[in-house]
């Protein structure tokens, strides 16, 4: 049985217990002056950086230890976004457009690994798993749109959520992916009515969800103890009518035709003749009056969503799950949702303040970790952490790892659908499901994909390393020269890898098993010894876990 900290969020959701908070600690009265905080340990710095970056490294940990987490966040938020589109546009024109997705993945890795805006890149990645577009499907031929979409997420990662949903809504990548681009007013004679795709998923997946939530993320219930839907078909149709009349910038005809490449990275433009001008039913009984322009309808509709009470807890849960823990307590969700609702200066939707609240919450770095704290690392983040720690590079300087979604189920903007690589509600059979908890990332840790990941790490450690003289120019290799230099001393070698990948904390089992293997490898086979340790650590359950 799982020892819950209080009532866990999901348990309360399923049991229908209205959130009682618990552990909130917001009793009135002046607080005593705080004692000086203890120094940040290396393990704590690693824990924090695995939440806030594409993988902790020892050098970044030293920075966090020196200036503490909050200053590191403040510093990071000032850094401009590392972008993809300028790189994409600097490349020679390809033979066919879809080829450029390889370059898009390349620049994604460069920015994720070496961009000094680590927090911004990590939050952009989180947002890309909530407001999903994907290379796979309708955007296969639109790599510039996909790259620019990611740039837009990075640039707005600490901005206001209201601006973000407007930019998402009008981005041609989203327009193509959820078919709002080219959506037109009804034509009753032909049984044509507006496309409902974007209207539905904007509400279900990007902003409010299917059922009404309390401020702490628990499901609100009606008098019969039933969840209360946030919208119905009539409201979806209202929003579908709002989102009519938008198409490619510079398009010769509405919704189709040959458009310049630049239309992929400019917001969609409005064609009034294709916009429905009737009145439109929105959320919470709001009705948009007839006769408005497309821009007026859009502003009214996005304001209507933005001000729905669900957005705070909905965004809080989604971002907490991407950054810190799969099973936040109701108190944690409430604390973050309250910051969404008001950043302290009367502003609603300040994502920078929300991210800061998520990362600095006591539950993000509990002094005594419970067995439900933390989360599983996504395979892509396990990979980037290794790449960062071992200075992975290729002779060409490129990172064209475009097939990672086939290898282990995940790649940058390569989700199989708008529902992301895994569901926020996924619960594997066994103790997690029986305890009404979730572990979203475990949905792609199947027998098949976990074996594929493990095999990839085998090849990475033993084959794709700096000692291999037969690498192709695009092969991404890790550099473990330091480990080879230390390989004669088994304990020193294990400590070195544990220091780089696990923040210095390694379980007795893993240490013992690695030491046992190293004893079988001659001391002179330094590369094999180094590879063996890296293989065992990167495939271990403790490395897959984000504390």
């Amino acid at each position, binding site marked *: 049985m799982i020892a819950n900290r209080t009532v866990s969020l999901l348990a309360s959701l399923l049991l229908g217990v209205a959130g009682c908070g618990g552990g909130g600690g917001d009793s009135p009265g002046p607080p005593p002056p705080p004692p000086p905080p203890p120094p940040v340990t290396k393990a704590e710095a690693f824990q924090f950086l695995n939440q806030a970056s594409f993988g902790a490294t020892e050098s970044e940990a030293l920075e966090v230890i020196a200036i503490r987490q909050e200053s590191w966040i403040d510093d990071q938020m000032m850094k401009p976004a590392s972008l993809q589109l300028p790189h994409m546009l600097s490349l020679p024109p390809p033979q066919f457009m879809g080829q450029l997705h390889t370059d898009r993945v390349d620049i994604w890795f460069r920015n994720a690994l070496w961009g000094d805006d680590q927090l911004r890149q990590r939050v952009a990645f989180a947002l890309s798993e909530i407001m999903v577009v994907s290379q796979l499907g309708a955007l296969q031929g639109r790599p510039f749109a996909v790259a620019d979409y990611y740039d837009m997420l990075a640039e707005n990662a600490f901005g206001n959520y209201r601006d973000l949903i407007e930019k998402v809504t009008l981005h041609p990548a989203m327009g193509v992916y959820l078919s709002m681009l080219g*959506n037109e007013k009804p034509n009753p004679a032909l049984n044509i009515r507006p496309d409902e795709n974007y209207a539905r998923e904007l509400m279900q997946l990007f902003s409010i969800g299917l059922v009404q939530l309390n401020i702490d993320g628990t499901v609100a219930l009606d008098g019969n103890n039933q969840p209360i839907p946030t919208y119905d078909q009539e409201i979806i149709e209202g929003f579908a009518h709002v989102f009519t009349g938008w198409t490619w910038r510079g398009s010769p005809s509405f919704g189709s035709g040959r458009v310049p490449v630049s239309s992929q990275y400019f917001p969609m433009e409005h064609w009034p003749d294709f916009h429905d001008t009737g009145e439109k039913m929105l959320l919470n009984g709001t009705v948009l009056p007839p006769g408005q322009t497309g821009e007026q309808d859009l502003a009214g509709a996005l304001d209507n969503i933005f001000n729905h009470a669900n957005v705070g807890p909905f965004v809080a849960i989604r971002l907490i799950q991407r950054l810190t823990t799969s099973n936040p307590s109701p108190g944690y969700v409430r604390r973050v949702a309250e910051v969404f609702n008001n950043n302290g200066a009367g502003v609603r939707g300040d994502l920078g303040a929300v991210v800061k609240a998520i990362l600095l919450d006591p539950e993000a770095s509990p002094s005594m970790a419970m067995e439900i704290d*933390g989360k599983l690392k996504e395979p892509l983040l396990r990979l980037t952490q290794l790449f960062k720690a071992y200075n992975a590079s290729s002779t060409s300087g490129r990172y064209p790892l475009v097939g990672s979604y086939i290898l282990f189920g995940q790649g940058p903007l390569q989700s199989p*659908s708008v529902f992301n690589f895994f569901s926020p509600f996924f619960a594997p*059979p066994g103790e997690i499901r029986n305890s009404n*908890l979730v*572990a979203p990332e475990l949905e*792609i840790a199947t027998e098949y994909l976990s074996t594929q990941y493990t095999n990839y790490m085998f090849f990475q450690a033993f084959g794709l390393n700096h000692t291999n003289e037969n690498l192709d120019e695009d092969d991404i290799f890790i550099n473990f020269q330091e480990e080879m230099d230390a390989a004669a001393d088994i304990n020193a070698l294990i400590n070195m890898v544990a220091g780089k990948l696990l923040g210095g904390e390694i379980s007795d089992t893993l240490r013992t*098993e690695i030491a046992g293997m190293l004893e079988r490898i001659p001391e002179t086979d330094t590369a094999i010894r180094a590879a063996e340790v890296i293989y065992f650590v990167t495939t271990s359950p403790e490395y897959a876990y984000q504390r």
Partner: protein
Amino acid sequence: MKTLNRRDFLRTSGAAALFAATPGLAYSQVVGGGGSFTDYRALVCVFMFGGNDSYNMLIPNTNAEYAAYAASRQNLALLQSDLLPISPASTGTPDFGLHPAMGGIQGLFQDGNAALVTNVGPLIEPTTKAQYFDRSVTLPPQLFSHNDQQDQWTSLRGNVQSKTGWAGRMADLIRDGVAGQQMATNASLFGSNLFQSADETVAYVMGPNGPVQYQGFSTTPGDILNEQRLAFGRVVAAQYDTIYERGYAEVQRRAIDAADTVSMAIANAPTINTVFPQSQLGTQLQTVARLIAVRDELQMQRQIFFVATGGFDSHDDQNQNQPGLLGGISDAIAAFHAATEELQIANSVTTFTQSDFGRTLTSNGDGTDHAWAGNQLVAGGAVNGGDLYGSYPLLEIGGPEDVGGGRMIPSTSADQYAATLAKWFGIPDVDLDIVAPNLGNFAQRDLGFMIA
């Protein structure tokens, strides 16, 4: 792992009320009393992700009904002259047509090896249009939403929470009878899914080409790679402090256990000469055929396979994309059936489709939106083929089955569809209500499309 007793199982699967309504039922009467099966049977679920527009898969071919269809669908309507006509056994005349890309299914239908179940979808109880609008019946929650309707189809959850799927519950029910199997009853070639999720048994997830083996492991005593395998095994068998590490380690343990057995068996499979389409679905079904070919080596008696393909969410460009989508389904299922004939096991293998939902009869210009009821395919030697099952509505906007925009209310429930397949699979009638918890709300427990 925690083991649930039967009472727990019934409670968690939402079937407690049904069990309580049949007092005096002995455990052995329900779960087969430890007896084992004497034959082999396999169900193969082909899931069409996104919501198949199945009113363009099966189309009325009689003039008045076709005219209603064409008036509703407008620019998305297929030409009557392009339809592949089929003559259901019950009428003997070519009253219906299949999408022109579905020649494979037309052939199976004519040979009596395929049937269609019409206007079927998730329901909790029989529902009319008037009842839908005055809310005098209980409706499945969150109609027209992708993931919710997928869950409805695969779990038959009705309006309660369910964490098990109907294939998972079948595997739990028969587990005592298949104790000698070398592989789990449920196998997925398309990732984790609710359909095969269960309380007491665990589905095995492999890749589209079957299991992958771990690199750098051997089983030769004294070999360092054997030591590596054993050391890796001890790492994933260790005790961990968090649910996440334990969950991840458990998957790795299962993967190590199953990969070698199944991979070795597949490697020794007889050659199958049937040519499969080079598609995601074709590859998966070819692997299923190879697994079925080695059923005896793996001592399999009952198997449920989950295969799938996507792209059916045709909000855009439907006329361009539909031939490839439906042709892909048709070609892959026809090839798979041919392979089972080649293996002389066709009478023991039943393939059936599921999808999120049907789609609107109205269009959004160049595509369709999320709706409710649709048509499904069933194929195999044990199918009472060459016929349609369930009623086929008049495809009229604003008609008696339309709740708006051409969203059709199901006239047959997904529970009835599942129960008919489950009965053939060997689930006793008394347990069909565990597989399909709302079956008792419908008069017909068996739709009749399977040979008894």
